[in-house]
């Protein structure tokens, strides 16, 4: 729909009525900026971008979109790497980044109530300003990423080993439904407190992991936890998947750590300027296992460190080859880029600012027992498509399940690279499903692959939920493919 057309002009006038002239745009450069992300997902230009500041504006937009049958795509930073905030061609893009108030901090019950535009960086600065040492689990994503979308997309953060996925931190929310009604879920639905989702029937599940297709969040209560003054972040080099993952599983049995993970060797090469490395020499480390732990005093920190040393000693006695832990501040002295692992939130410039501009991934949640096989198969698939096997792995919530993620960086202007990334991701998704790993922040490509394998009654229920909440199918079509007209 062109703004120059009569229909387009009518939409423009209505949007200006809701948002004011300064918060509506159909500027071509802006439309292009919002039409794509860093992945291989096909761009699509919206007809208008609007910036909301209040729940009332979101409600007015949604009601109008229903009347006019215009699709809406909500977004904050747009860095989800799954095409999930690419709008429908000619649709409306709802930018929530200016809806960024921290509405409440309850220190006794340990939560904040925030608007959708509040970023991880903003929340950290807020606590620093008020002199309070609290934090939330922070992803390896740019600091301007919104907390609310990250929770709704159920991503992971640097406290996910201890606390689980981001959705676990949610106490409740205010949601604008696709029909324009405003609903609260969680304790806030009944009492003047946002302290928990229990004990009412938990309707957060109607919105979590639905990729923004069933509601627009306008407020969310997110748990925060006390920060600890003493922290150690350390890396251990291992030479096989078996060594790395069996050590991760062993460490996971101890409730002492904040974060554990395994990064594959291409990440290190990338940090030293080699973005297209040849296959690894057998003498080189294969995986970098990182471990993050904190304490309230030095005695506690040393006690945790001594546990780590005794675990390493025991594993080495069983023949495992593991290098001594290297603290991140030592690594920073070797290469300043390691500072991006020293403090969160962080910007992994060697990934997000890669000169080619392209960044994509397949991220999955699955059983830790299949990690080794998954990484071995994933390695072959990535090389087959011309990508070094860059992987990130994390045990989640005490090691109850795993994250296995494969990352590609590429030249986004190169059509051949786009094809290779797309096919590589398809092959990785098939492989992951074969080993019981499920894509999180699932792209529409992933949905197309697994929807026929899903329990049919479950799938039918997803369709019913979508139809009930969004009868006109206006909210973020083309993502979960649950709408009547979506293929």
């Amino acid at each position: 729909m062109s703004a120059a057309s009569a229909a387009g002009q009518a939409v423009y006038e209505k949007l200006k009525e809701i948002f004011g002239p300064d918060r509506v745009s159909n500027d071509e450069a802006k439309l292009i900026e919002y039409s794509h992300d860093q992945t291989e997902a096909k761009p699509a230009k919206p007809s208008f971008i609007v910036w909301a500041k209040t729940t009332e504006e979101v409600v007015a937009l949604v009601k109008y979109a229903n009347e006019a049958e215009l699709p809406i795509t909500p977004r904050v930073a747009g860095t989800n790497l799954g095409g999930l905030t690419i709008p429908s061609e000619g649709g409306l893009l709802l930018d929530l980044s200016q809806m960024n108030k921290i509405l409440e901090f309850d220190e006794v019950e340990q939560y904040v109530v925030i608007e959708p535009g509040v970023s991880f960086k903003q929340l950290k600065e807020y606590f620093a300003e008020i002199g309070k040492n609290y934090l939330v689990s922070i992803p390896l994503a740019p600091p301007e990423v919104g907390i609310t979308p990250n929770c709704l997309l159920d991503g992971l953060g640097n406290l996910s080993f201890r606390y689980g996925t981001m959705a676990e931190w949610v106490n409740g929310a205010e949601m604008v439904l696709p029909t324009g009604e405003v609903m609260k879920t969680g304790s806030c639905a009944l009492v003047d407190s946002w302290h928990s989702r229990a004990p009412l029937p938990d309707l957060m599940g109607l919105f979590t992991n639905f990729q923004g297709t069933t509601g627009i969040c306008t407020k969310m209560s997110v748990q925060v936890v006390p920060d600890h003054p003493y922290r150690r972040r350390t890396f251990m080099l291992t030479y096989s998947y078996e060594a790395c993952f069996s050590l991760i599983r062993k460490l996971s049995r101890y409730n002492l750590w904040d974060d554990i993970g395994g990064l594959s060797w291409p990440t290190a090469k990338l940090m030293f300027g080699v973005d297209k490395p040849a296959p690894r020499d057998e003498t080189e480390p294969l995986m970098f296992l990182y471990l993050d732990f904190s304490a309230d005093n030095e005695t506690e920190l040393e006690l945790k460190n001594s546990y780590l040393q005794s675990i390493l000693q025991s594993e080495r006695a069983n023949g495992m080859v593991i290098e001594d832990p290297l603290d991140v501040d030592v690594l920073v002295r070797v290469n300043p880029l390691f500072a991006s692992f020293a403090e969160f939130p962080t910007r992994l410039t060697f990934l997000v600012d890669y000169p080619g501009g392209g960044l994509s991934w397949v991220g999955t949640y699955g059983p830790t027992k299949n990690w080794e096989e998954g990484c071995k198969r994933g390695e072959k698939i990535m090389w087959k498509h011309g990508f070094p096997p860059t992987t990130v792995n994390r045990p989640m919530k005490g090691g109850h399940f795993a994250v296995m993620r494969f990352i590609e960086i590429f030249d986004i202007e190169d059509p051949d690279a786009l094809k290779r990334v797309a096919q590589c991701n398809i092959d990785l998704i098939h492989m992951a499903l074969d080993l019981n790993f499920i894509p999180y922040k699932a792209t529409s490509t992933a949905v197309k692959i697994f929807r026929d394998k899903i329990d049919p009654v479950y799938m039918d229920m997803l369709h019913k939920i979508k139809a009930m909440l969004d009868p006109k199918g206006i909210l973020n079509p083309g993502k979960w493919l649950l709408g009547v007209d979506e293929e």
Partner: protein
Amino acid sequence: MEIKVIEPEKIVLGGLILKAIMEKNAGADPAIEKKLTSMSGVINVLAAQMKFRIIFEGKGGSITIANGLHDSPSATVAADFGALIEAAMGKRLVTNFLTGRLKIGGNPFKLLGLMSALKI
């Protein structure tokens, strides 16, 4: 000062680490750059299992890092990763040498010339 790498896509991680440290130190201190570019010969490095060599052209010439070991090096240093990092930090040199975690061969004065360039 830029240190060259033979086949950079294949160079082992230990070589990349050493290159980064040397470039950083030489960039910060012209005396270190002068010392490095005046050195000649080859130093073999065994970092954990990784094997690479540093080739000094001498007389203000280039410095190159390559995979593999030279048959007749001027000096050799071999250590596990932790001992190498400790050496770069100036820690536990004697202890690691006496316990065999850090091994030195050939002309030790060649290695002395390198020490200031490898500090982190």
